[in-house]
């Protein structure tokens, strides 16, 4: 029997029972669409989170006071007692390596900000000129904190775009004196960048020179130090340098944690990759359910078409051909169901992308391939029982309708 004839005969049989066929196509399509939509959500979440971390900056190392075992369990275990403070001098010392391009010390707090009778409580970053380049931020207008001696700061500040519009409205912000806590700072720039940093909306912050912020909050230590390595290859050297330098300054104790952006990225990548796989697996179960449905409906169909099977045998079909005929039906069903499901799944994930533009949804290729393969395989596996039952029918009994 020719392949084209096999497909045509199966197609004719499927067309003869449109209700049954539509039901099975629907079951298969739902399964495939579920895989596509769920994995595209998982993949969207993965891309979103890794994208956020990538936007932290390239070749970035983050130095945090206190030693934590990041490799073991989820909660950070601090070895020893209270960690020594990270100081501005520590940060300064980190600049002295060929592996390090920029060092940006950071403190974080919050303070009341007021101008012309308007007052708001906002997050305050204490930073230096290096932060702009390290974080790849862009200025909306004006300029960033001036470069120069960290210990002799001027009374200037940079604010986020949202804060600017809420405090100053239509008044030009540059050159205005903004009160932060109990001090006054001249606004010299407005950030143009969007996004979040350590969970804080950068459009809604005030950035002060780091020493100003430290004395404003009355803290002796830094929140963390951001270090940009000169290249991707020098990340390890930079990390080693940071550890030994800080240890040297802290009586030989390595009481800091150095996180590389790569480590964070790959952790999130793994976590969300596993999440997506899990979602695919759960959705995949519906494909097996669809297969079971195909099996049941085809078993009914075989018993309804008993005399037809007898006739096929009488006019020369061996068992193998009967199996092929019924299997072709199952495969056609699962294949067309899968195609419909793919279309629906891609449509659904495009819709989600429309509704939540921030989420970069899109099914991963492996999930799409796996969905189609599992759908067709499930059609084959579950279709083979009815097909073999049909092939085993005794033609005499089948034709007699006994």
């Amino acid at each position: 029997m020719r392949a084209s004839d096999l497909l045509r005969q199966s197609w004719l049989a499927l067309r003869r029972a449109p209700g049954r066929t539509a039901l099975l196509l629907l079951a298969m399509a739902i399964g495939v669409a579920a895989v596509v939509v769920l994995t595209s959500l998982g993949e969207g979440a993965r891309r979103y989170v890794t994208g956020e971390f990538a936007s932290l900056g390239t070749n970035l190392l983050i130095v945090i006071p206190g030693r934590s075992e990041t490799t073991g369990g989820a909660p950070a275990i601090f070895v020893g007692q209270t960690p020594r403070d990270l100081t501005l001098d520590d940060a300064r010392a980190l600049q002295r390596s060929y592996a390090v391009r920029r060092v940006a010390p950071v403190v974080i707090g919050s303070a009341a900000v007021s101008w012309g009778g308007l007052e708001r409580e906002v997050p305050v970053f204490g930073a230096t000129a290096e932060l702009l380049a390290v974080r790849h931020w862009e200025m909306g207008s004006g300029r960033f904190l001036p470069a120069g001696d960290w210990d002799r700061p001027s009374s200037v500040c940079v604010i986020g775009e949202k804060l600017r519009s809420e405090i100053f409205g239509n008044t030009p912000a540059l050159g205005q004196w903004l009160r932060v806590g109990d001090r006054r700072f001249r606004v010299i720039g407005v950030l143009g960048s969007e996004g979040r940093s350590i969970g804080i909306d950068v459009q809604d912050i005030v950035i002060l020179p780091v020493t100003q912020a430290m004395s404003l909050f009355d803290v002796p230590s830094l929140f963390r130090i951001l270090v940009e390595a000169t290249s991707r290859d020098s990340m390890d050297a930079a990390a080693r340098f940071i550890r030994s330098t800080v240890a040297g300054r802290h009586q030989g104790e390595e009481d800091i944690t150095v996180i590389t952006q790569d480590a964070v990225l790959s952790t999130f990548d793994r976590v969300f990759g596993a999440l997506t796989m899990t979602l695919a697996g759960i959705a995949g179960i519906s494909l097996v359910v669809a297969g079971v449905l195909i099996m049941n409906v085809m078993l009914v169909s075989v018993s309804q078409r008993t005399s037809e099977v007898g006739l096929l045998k009488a006019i020369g079909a061996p068992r193998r051909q009967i199996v092929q005929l019924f299997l072709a039906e199952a495969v056609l069903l699962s294949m067309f169901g899968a195609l419909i499901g793919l279309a629906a799944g891609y449509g659904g994930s495009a819709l989600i992308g429309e509704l939540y533009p921030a989420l970069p949804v899109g099914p991963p290729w492996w999930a799409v391939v796996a969905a189609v393969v599992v759908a067709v395989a499930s059609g084959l596996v579950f279709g083979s029982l009815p097909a073999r039952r049909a092939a085993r029918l005794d033609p005499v009994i089948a034709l007699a309708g006994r």
Partner: protein
Amino acid sequence: MPMIELDKVDRVFEVGDEQVRALDQVDLQIEAGEYLSIMGPSGSGKSTLLNLLGLLDRPTAGRYLLDGRDTTRLDDREQALTRGEKIGFVFQAFHLVPRLTAAENVELPMVLAGIAPGLRHSRVAEALASLGLSDRAGHRPDQLSGGQRQRVAIARATIMAPELLLADEPTGNLDTHSGDEVIEVLEQLNASGLTLLVVTHDPQLGVRARRQLKMVDGRIVRDERR
């Protein structure tokens, strides 16, 4: 060498604890081109004999030689191939595939045999024309009369140019007029060389055959030629 040779063939059905001897030590030889009728009371084993000759069933004991070959040694594929190439069936219940048109039903054996579509279509058209069914080619079975359905079934049974045609009460579901038409078609086929076996309850049809068998309780009790 006879075309068909049955040698002490038994066919025993097990029904619960009981054994039903549908064929009992049947010896039979049929030459190519013969025209046989098989008659006998209900349950005498006529259909069982026909199914066995058509390789739809196997003897419990004895030998069946078709064209000198022992058919009991053939596997499923070889048996199916033999049915497709050498044997045609005509059933009382027609057994047309309801979703296919008359032409597609006639075409079906050639589809299974893997014959090229171009060749198939010309042969189907020819077969339908010779049975006066050209204008019914595109009709489905439920749009045809009983006589027309049986003629489509005959076209299907003969499309592979078999040497043996087995008809089990081919006129059983038909009125006298269409029954006569069907028998005439079968006899024409026999006249052109096809070996024809017809099982019938109708004595008037039975006596038209050149050789008449009578079965009782699984045995051939009479074998007459005229």
